């Protein structure tokens, strides 16, 4: 599903990623962990082609993302869902409208939009909050709306960058369990996080980054042992 081949990313003087190589199979749930500045976010951005590698190749579903023409980028992004730390919900739109917004923009039929949005709200258990504005939702609920928006197009890959960065431990646990449920439905889930407690509890594959390099890649791994 995902393959990084000797990927290096340099910003000016800073080497954010240094000769990173790994593979992630279809249907896996993987945590990318590491301290701040380890290169987690850069790795995520390379996946959805927000950034291009300085050298090396990034493959998503056998497509070399680093060499993808600009006009093909939207097609790549429609095949994956992206969840942000700061939710990126539009304050003047309801939960339903936030989730439906990208679907309107790709010209989807209204009935199909309704069906998909209600389906996504059901997955994140927020059917009763469809008409609520973000200001009336808790932080956890906002992130669940963000996740619903990410999965509404039925992506095969879900990329989440610090999804619980702004949440308390209990809500974080809910979000991680939700991500696991989505993974169990067949979606490959990649989570960049430094939430040690959650990673240790989930017992999933953990790729640890330090100073832009992969220092460990262990199935059913733990955060603490790998990074520190």
């Amino acid at each position: 599903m995902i393959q990084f081949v000797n990927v290096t990313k340099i910003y000016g003087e800073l080497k954010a990623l240094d000769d990173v190589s790994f593979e992630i199979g279809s249907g896996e749930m993987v945590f990318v962990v590491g301290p701040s500045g380890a290169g987690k976010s850069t790795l995520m951005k390379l996946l959805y082609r927000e950034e291009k590698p300085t050298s090396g190749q990034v493959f998503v579903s056998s497509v070399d993302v680093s060499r993808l023409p600009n006009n093909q980028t939207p097609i790549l992004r429609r095949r994956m869902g992206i969840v942000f730390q700061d939710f990126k919900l539009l304050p003047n739109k309801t939960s339903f409208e936030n989730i439906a917004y990208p679907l309107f923009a790709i010209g989807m039929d209204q009935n199909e939009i309704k069906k998909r949005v209600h389906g996504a709200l059901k997955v994140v258990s927020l059917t009763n909050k469809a008409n609520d504005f973000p200001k009336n939702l808790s932080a956890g609920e906002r992130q669940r709306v963000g996740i619903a928006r990410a999965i509404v197009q039925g992506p095969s890959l879900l990329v989440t960058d610090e999804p619980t960065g702004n949440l308390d431990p209990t809500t974080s646990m809910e979000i991680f369990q939700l991500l696991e449920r989505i993974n169990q439905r067949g979606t490959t889930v990649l989570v960049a996080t430094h939430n040690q407690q959650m990673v240790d509890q989930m017992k999933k594959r953990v790729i640890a980054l330090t100073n832009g390099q992969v220092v460990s890649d262990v199935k059913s791994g733990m955060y603490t042992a790998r990074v520190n």
Partner: protein
Amino acid sequence: MNLSVRKIRMAYRMLYETLQDLWRSGWSNWVVISILTSVLAICGFVLQISFSLNIIGQKLTDQLEFSVYLSDNVELKEFALAIGKMPYVKRVEVIDKDVAWYEFKKNFTIAEDFQNPLPNTVHVRVATPEYLKSTILAVKKIPGVIDINYAPGVLGFINKLKAFFQIVGSLLIVLLAFVTVVITGNTIQLVIHSRQNEIEVLRLMGVEDWYIKGPLIFQGIFYAVVSATFAIAPLYVLQTFLWDTAQNLIGSALPTGLPEYYAGNIFQIYYILLIIGIIVTGSGCLWSSKKYLKV
């Protein structure tokens, strides 16, 4: 999903987003529209004057025929042949003084013993107006020429007027167009800034960049349509002013049918203004979206 139906839905959404952007832009819209209206009004004024002066010039050119009056000792046919051989002379018409006097007497009652006062006359037409003066000067030097009757002053004045309006008008248009491009660009920058979150969500969710940029371009087109419509209205007033001024200046030399011509070409000018407006606002939108919009 049927591709064309999908595109129609997207176009509808883009129009919806455009209206939202216009609403968000508030008073900035009117700043752009008022400046663009000024640019287009000046543009329309210069165009209208140029068109009018061209028409007047053309009509006068048709009448650009000078008359040469000759003394009796000049051999008329030989003179006409010599004139006909001059460069840029298009046509020569000989009016014998006896024939002219006979025609004159048919219309007026004149005493039998009254001597023919008319001179032999040759009407000369040149190919293009710029050779009129040089041809007249050359003919004047031929012995036996008593006088030459022509109206070069009006044409010279028209040409000078046209050049003045074209130069001053073009400078003003370029200057104001630049200002409009900058102001349109800044307005679009504000829109991009206020939509930052939406744009980021859209592009990361795989929405094509033409959909994201589309509303900004539509906004520019909206400015152009409104401004061109506003600019065409004062042009009617300017036309009247132009017509009155021209009548005072050159009076009877004015060709007939100009007001009708104005009425006919107002739509032509509107389309030209609309295209200029779209180019100016389009440049502002493109400049701003290229600089501030990451898609």
